[in-house]
């Protein structure tokens, strides 16, 4: 069968010594930053982007992908032991995981999180291998009108699924689109919004935006709060969950995996949303929902499986359509562009080694993560004791060197600092930065496809409604908006985000 020969190819790529090494580096780094609160995969990947220039494309992407799903594993450790989400997607794990740790069941909590994540990772890998090729085939038939509508749908979905005010999220998307337009216009050669600054005629650096808004702003916001971190369990013993634990949680793991895989594929989805949704679902279907928040193992198993599944399936829109569904995927697009690969459906046919190698590496990486996380848990706990006052200068040093090396000029560093200010203002004004990043990366693409579609239709905007695929996507987008704006759902949505 085709699938098997493809997977065989993938494994032959992923199991080469070099790629194994970079996969290990990726998941190690991912676990590291996952464990450490205050630095997330977005800032880390942004930091490493310039460095990946020296690697070959496959190794680079394998490593960067490893950081993202590795962080999902690491995040749960901190959530369970310290009651602080090491990663935003493990916010809900704090609820029951920490309670379990307080009851002396930190070991089983960590164990079930890792086992659930591993299971979810395996399933998600298979899902990508199964669903990506047919989707890419459909995507090859897309014209500019379809692409434009797809991006509209993606951006709308991203705002609907972002938490906080919907209208602010839409405003952030538009601001991101506008910022993405800075630089030389490909059609006319005019340098737009560059104010005569030669560096700006190439556009605002994507790494600067991502690192300023996510990295620097986060550090500053963290510093404003007084540091308090209490590690409840210094020594974790007995990592293996009991038979009863397995009986209690296997269904939750299955549900979490299914829900997470589905939500990861959606534009705007990914690990964060998956974990929230899985927790809510678990609480709904559970017979003893009163136990939730008091140390229910299902409350750890489901969101941890879901966030790992979601993290991995969110690669599907990236690999098949070339559309990022969350900021991490936007960075992956950046990484592909650095390597001279145009993201899109043609990646699979033109570079099968890269495509299948990356998928196979996900499974390999998940296996590594189980080993990294369970037997080596003591090391990560030690790491948690490093105080933030030592961590953040280190993070800053790596960020700054990374940014500087993009073009070896102080300009990028200044630009990043400026976006640090902007990001800080966003934090203060409760404007979610994720939609901005998506808009930023999609800005030029969207304009290009809009122009082409309108040129082909001779200026008739109805073209977006006449082509069936395009119309469907616009309808879904409209439906999403309508649903969220409906008063009943609006209230629910606010509750869902408040709850966790």
């Amino acid at each position, binding site marked *: 069968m085709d699938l098997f020969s493809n997977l065989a190819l993938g494994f032959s790529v992923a199991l080469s010594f070099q790629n194994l090494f970079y996969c290990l580096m990726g998941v190690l780094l991912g676990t590291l930053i996952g464990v450490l609160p205050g630095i997330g995969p977005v800032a880390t990947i942004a930091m490493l982007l310039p460095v990946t220039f020296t690697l070959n494309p496959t190794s680079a992407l394998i490593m960067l992908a490893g950081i993202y799903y590795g962080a999902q594993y690491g995040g749960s450790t901190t959530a369970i032991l310290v009651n602080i989400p090491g990663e935003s997607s493990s916010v809900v794990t704090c609820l029951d995981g920490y309670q379990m740790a307080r009851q002396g069941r930190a070991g089983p909590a960590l164990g079930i999180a890792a086992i659930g994540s591993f299971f979810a990772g395996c399933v998600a890998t298979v899902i990508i291998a199964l669903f990506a090729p047919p989707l890419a085939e459909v995507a090859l038939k897309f014209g500019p009108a379809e692409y434009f509508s797809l991006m509209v749908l993606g951006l709308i979905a991203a705002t609907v699924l972002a938490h906080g005010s919907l209208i602010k999220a839409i405003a952030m998307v*538009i*601001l991101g689109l506008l910022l993405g337009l800075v630089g030389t*216009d490909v059609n006319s050669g005019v340098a737009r919004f560059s104010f005569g600054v030669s560096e700006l005629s190439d556009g605002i650096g994507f790494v600067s935006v991502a690192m300023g808004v996510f990295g620097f702003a986060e550090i500053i916001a963290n510093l404003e709060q007084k540091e308090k971190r209490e590690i409840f369990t210094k020594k974790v013993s007995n990592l293996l969950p009991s038979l009863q634990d397995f009986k209690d949680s296997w269904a939750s793991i299955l549900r979490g995996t299914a829900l997470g895989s589905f939500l990861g594929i959606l534009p705007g989805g990914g690990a964060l949303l998956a974990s929230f949704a899985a927790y809510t679902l678990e609480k709904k279907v559970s017979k003893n929902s009163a136990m939730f928040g008091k140390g229910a193992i299902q409350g750890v198993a489901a969101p941890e499986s879901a966030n790992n599944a979601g993290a991995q399936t969110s690669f599907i829109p990236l690999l098949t359509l070339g559309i990022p569904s969350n900021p991490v995927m936007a960075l992956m697009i950046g990484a592909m562009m650095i390597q001279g690969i145009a993201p899109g459906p043609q990646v699979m046919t033109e570079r099968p080694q890269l495509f299948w190698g990356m998928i196979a590496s996900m499974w390999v990486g998940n296996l590594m993560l189980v080993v990294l996380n369970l037997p080596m848990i003591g090391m990560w706990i030690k790491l948690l004791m490093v105080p933030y006052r030592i961590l953040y200068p280190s993070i800053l*040093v790596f960020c*700054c*060197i990374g940014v500087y090396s993009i073009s*070896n000029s102080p300009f990028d*560093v200044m630009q990043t*600092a400026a976006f640090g200010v902007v990001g800080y203002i966003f934090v203060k004004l409760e404007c979610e930065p994720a939609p901005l990043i998506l808009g930023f990366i999609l800005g030029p693409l969207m304009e290009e496809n809009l122009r082409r579609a309108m040129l082909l239709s001779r200026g008739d*905007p109805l073209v977006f409604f006449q082509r069936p695929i395009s119309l469907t996507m616009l309808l879904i987008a409209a439906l999403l908006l309508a649903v969220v704006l409906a008063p009943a759902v609006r209230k629910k949505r606010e509750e869902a985000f408040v709850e966790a």
Partner: protein
Amino acid sequence: MKFELKITSSKDFWAGLMFIAFGLAFWYIAQKNYAMGNAVRMGPAYFPVVLGGMLAVLGAVIFAQAFVAKSSDPAVALPFRRWYLIAALILGVIAFFFRDARDPSLPGYAFWKEVAQANATIFSIILLFAAFPLRVFPFRLWRVLVGLGLGELAYWWYTKLPPHDANIAAVIGHTLLSGVAVGLIFAAFGERSLWVILFSVVIFGYVLKPLGLVAATILLVVISAWGGHEFKWKEVTILSIALAAFSWLAFVKGLGLPMNVWPGLWE
């Protein structure tokens, strides 16, 4: 005369203003400087003008929400002087509509154009500030002004610098000056951690080339550590040296990034 606006969400208030400002800025710059084109062949201005307009409208909606929304922020009363505000708006409108009056045959054309363009804008901004007592703006104005002035000076000096960073005094002086300028502007807003961190980053960017990676890293660590809650000399010294050594080994030796490691000024 003083009036008060009841704001129930100060976050929406400022966010709305921010989006309106961004939207109008993009809209205005695009439609003024670039070709619009038409729907078939869109010029470089088309998409930004549409998006800028949408952003401004959304900003206005968010701004309006600030007065009605129920939010967790405490209700804030925004005091303002009514006539100042109205005058500012009128002047702003005049400045806007006279910005490209195109009939030079009118008597006193040049004079009025000048007045309308520059002065009305300036007056309307001043009046706008006067309309709201300064304390409603969450920043320290004088720091911004001094910072902008110093930055201007630093930039002027920068343009006079020889291209190869030959003069060590000039480089250090310029770096300090612009660093302080940026720091002051940052310091006008928010808390210490904000501006100390960003200040350290800006300094790093400036000194990396002339002073080399080791010195830049040590500076970055020492300054940024000062932005935290505790500052322990011993710890910071060890940390800065360790990080400098690590980044030298990892980035320059390991990954081969082309960077000065030691001060390259005397070469």
